[in-house]
């Protein structure tokens, strides 16, 4: 029996304002301390990551007059992975007469997350969503418009109203480019210093507070420290732990995990979303599971052949021999059920022999009916770039034959634990965007990711970070010679040397590929105690391989991508164990965390609110111990209920 080494500790306090959650944000903002305009330039804030959360946080703090140092691993701020979000951004503007409202947005999001997120945070998300659309429009994001000139919307999974704002299939790109331009505007104004091609490799802590970071310049290999009054991590999600995921190749958990190694808590690491409309794996060297936007489910119909093993081409299968299984099982939401349900249903079809394609590992997403109903022109206006992307990847034209899709690792609902003010348990360390947790519970609704990144960056951190700074007026940043700074610099340099000196034979990517296979099997769409236990053992064995057989060519004082990969992989190999530990520990099914032992008679996730209505908040002990704290979840406005999308 594998030793899982879990211990349990005191609960943590999310510092949610007392009273009704619907008005909590306004009350909390009134309590926040302010920094006067003349004092703002005396404070320095480091923002790591320039995706939507990071770029907007850095820009907004710069606009307010703080000194900001922004870091990105990319050659340009604009390239962060927010750019790849396709379908849209939700907002509870409730302009249509489809009966949307703030309350309904919160209910959809809380329920979509299977009641494992923080209700008060979701109210803030809904409330600020209105300002986000106004602001992104004002800085030049060309949202799709109706013929009369008003903003237009579409629907996403888990929702029965139309509240998703979009720009064709490239909403993330348009928002990200606009936000990064606002960031550049502040660079030009001198409030923000932008560091490209620099990777955060550690966090500097003194007297229990976050005081700076240590980075490695990816072009020159230089290891450097920068100190500040506060640090914001907006470094994205960790889906790439699965090796093949919908994420960009450079997305990684390193900055967040290095903070964990310095004492930051990690919430719900096992809550990882499998996107139901990713491209299936079709060959060994395929580097990722390219994402096809969920918006396609507005008009595409998902089906498999009724007869298992049916080898006929899709268009040769007559209508009455097709099983539109989502429409059959979930008539109320049909093809727009939430992602966790759609992914699980697809996996069931594939495992029961109804999968399609050469490897029988996918299901159809068919636009035949939509083409007849809407015509090619409208279809292309809505999804043109997605169709093209699909055609490039597969050589097939979705106008003529159905797309083939399969669940792929996608979004991390878990992340660094923060309180209501988005501050971690380490004072001065703030977190925004996918690197954090909070809004999405155990399953994120489509188009809520761009929203949460924007709300954090533009309209939450610019209030809560100054509240912290105001309490440190007159304090200077740590000197470079401070032992706390020197100690971390030394740790980072030693780590780089240690990795370079392993001197084995295996490239990092091969080990990463093995880790991905272990996780898809053991901690994937469907989990069991046996599978998780086996995965933990395999991860530990793979770590041994890493520490004895890794090979990094070249030298660390140069542009060395193998060294980058190895460092990120080392962190994945550690956090992967915590993911499995969390999934093993949580003896219920909730959202994307589906434990086969805990399901209803109809095969749906069986939540256990009596014993598990809390967030698992993990602390990593020095000797490999996993210490679990809990933050109890209290739902005041949204009644705890069993999810039902039928």
């Amino acid at each position, binding site marked *: 029996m594998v030793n899982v080494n879990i211990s349990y500790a005191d609960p943590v306090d999310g510092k949610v304002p007392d009273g009704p959650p619907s008005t909590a944000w306004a009350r909390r903002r009134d309590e926040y301390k302010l920094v006067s305009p003349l004092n703002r330039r005396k404070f320095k804030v480091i923002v790591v990551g320039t995706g939507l959360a990071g770029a907007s946080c850095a820009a907004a703090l710069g*606009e307010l007059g703080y000194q900001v140092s922004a870091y990105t691993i*990319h*050659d*340009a*701020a604009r*390239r962060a*992975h927010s750019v*790849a979000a396709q379908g849209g951004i939700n907002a509870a503007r409730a302009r249509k007469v489809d009966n949307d409202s703030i309350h309904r947005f919160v209910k959809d999001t809380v329920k979509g997350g299977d009641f494992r997120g923080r209700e008060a945070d979701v109210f803030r998300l809904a409330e600020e969503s209105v*300002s986000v659309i*106004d*602001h992104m*429009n*004002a*800085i*030049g994001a*060309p*949202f*799709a*418009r*109706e013929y*009369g*000139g*008003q*903003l*237009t919307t579409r629907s996403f999974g888990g929702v029965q109203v139309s509240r998703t704002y979009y*720009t*064709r299939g*490239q909403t993330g790109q*348009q928002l990200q*480019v*606009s936000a990064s*331009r606002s960031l*550049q*505007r502040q*660079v*030009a104004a001198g409030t923000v210093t932008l560091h490209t091609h620099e990777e955060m490799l550690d966090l500097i802590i003194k007297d229990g507070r976050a005081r700076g970071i240590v980075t490695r310049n990816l072009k020159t290999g230089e290891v450097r420290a920068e100190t500040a009054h506060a640090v914001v991590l907006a470094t994205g999600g960790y889906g790439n732990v699965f090796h093949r995921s919908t994420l*960009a*190749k*450079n997305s990684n958990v390193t900055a967040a995990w290095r903070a964990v190694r310095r004492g930051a808590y990690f919430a719900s690491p096992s809550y990882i979303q499998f996107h139901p409309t990713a491209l299936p794996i*079709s*060959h060994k*060297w395929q*580097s*990722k599971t*390219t*994402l096809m936007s969920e918006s396609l489910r507005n008009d595409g119909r998902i089906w498999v052949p009724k007869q298992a093993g049916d080898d006929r081409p899709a268009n040769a299968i007559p209508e009455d021999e097709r099983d539109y299984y989502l429409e059959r099982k979930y008539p109320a939401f049909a093809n727009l059920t939430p992602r966790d349900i759609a992914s699980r249903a697809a996996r069931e079809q594939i495992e029961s022999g109804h999968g399609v394609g050469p490897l029988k590992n996918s299901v159809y997403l068919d636009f035949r009916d939509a083409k007849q109903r809407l015509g090619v022109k409208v279809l292309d206006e809505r999804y043109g770039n997605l169709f093209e*992307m699909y055609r*490039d*990847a597969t*050589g097939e034209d979705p106008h003529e034959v159905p797309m083939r899709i399969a669940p792929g690792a996608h979004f991390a609902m878990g992340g660094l634990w923060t309180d209501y003010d988005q501050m971690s348990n380490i004072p001065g360390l703030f977190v925004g965007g996918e690197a954090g947790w909070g809004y999405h519970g155990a399953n994120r609704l489509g188009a809520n990711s761009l929203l949460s990144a924007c709300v954090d960056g*533009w309209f939450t951190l610019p209030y809560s970070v100054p509240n912290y700074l105001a309490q440190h007026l007159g304090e200077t940043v740590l000197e470079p010679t401070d032992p706390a700074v020197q100690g971390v610099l030394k740790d980072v340099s030693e780590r780089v040397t240690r990795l370079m000196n392993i001197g084995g*034979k295996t*490239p990092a990517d*091969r080990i990463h590929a093995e880790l991905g296979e272990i996780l898809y099997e053991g901690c994937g769409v469907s989990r069991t105690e046996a599978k998780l236990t086996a995965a933990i053992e395999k991860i530990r064995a793979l770590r041994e391989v890493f520490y004895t057989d890794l*090979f990094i*060519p070249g030298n660390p004082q*140069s*542009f060395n*991508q*193998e060294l980058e990969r190895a460092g990120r992989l080392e962190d994945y190999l550690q956090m992967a164990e915590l993911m499995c530990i969390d999934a093993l520990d949580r003896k219920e099914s909730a959202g994307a965390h589906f434990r086969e032992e805990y399901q209803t008679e109809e095969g749906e996730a069986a939540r256990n609110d009596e014993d598990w209505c809390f967030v698992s908040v993990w602390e990593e002990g020095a000797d490999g111990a996993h210490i679990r704290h809990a933050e109890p979840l209290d739902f005041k406005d949204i009644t705890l209920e069993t999810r039902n999308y039928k």
Partner: protein
Amino acid sequence: MKLTIEVWRQDNTATAGRFETYTVTGAYEEMSLLELIDYLNDQLVSEGREPIAYESDCREGICGTCGITVNDQPHGPVPNTPSCRQHLRSFKDGDNLRLEPFRSEAFPVVRDLVVDRTALDDVIRAGGFVSVDAGTAADADSMQIGHGRAEQALDFSACIGCGACIAACPNGSANLYAGSILQSLSVLPQGQAERSSRARNLLAEADTHFGPCSVYGECAVTCPAGIPLSAIAAVNRERARSAFRKGKDD
């Protein structure tokens, strides 16, 4: 498939580069161009050699990180398609592929196939933004923008900032890139208040890095985001317009 691959190898900006030739067997047509390099790199590293440095990220054609010149064509043989979405089905068994970085004086080589594209951001920083602070915006629905106008703005703002247009241009001109920024904002009401100052500052910056446009049109054939060639006309129009509006921001 068996392919012969000539690759530009260069240790850093200061050193000279050279081509090295590799033979790859066992490649297949479903592979993307980048997956072919991954495959080759896996072999190189397991033989104890340094892999070919190249950059990529989303591999879905939207981040603009990748960009490799294949047999003299920036991004590869299929027009209007980024390197990550080029597949080996464009090649046949026995073919020769010559891989180089994007070639332009404005893009110094960092290593192998990686170039420094800082100049693109310098252009943005000079004026490619709308100066509105967080929280100060008016209701987005109070601004009426017709469907066609919004779509037109999007046609131009689709630029992914990869720099292929510049590498494709015999003059190393950035007019497609600069024009896409100017045009997307000039058709929207949000772009009006700073329309002249933006054109003036942004184009002055672009002129310091990039060459002039002679309307070869190679840029639009290469552009993976399909930015229309009319973007280059926007450069001349906005330049002239801003000259007539000397001293004015709008």
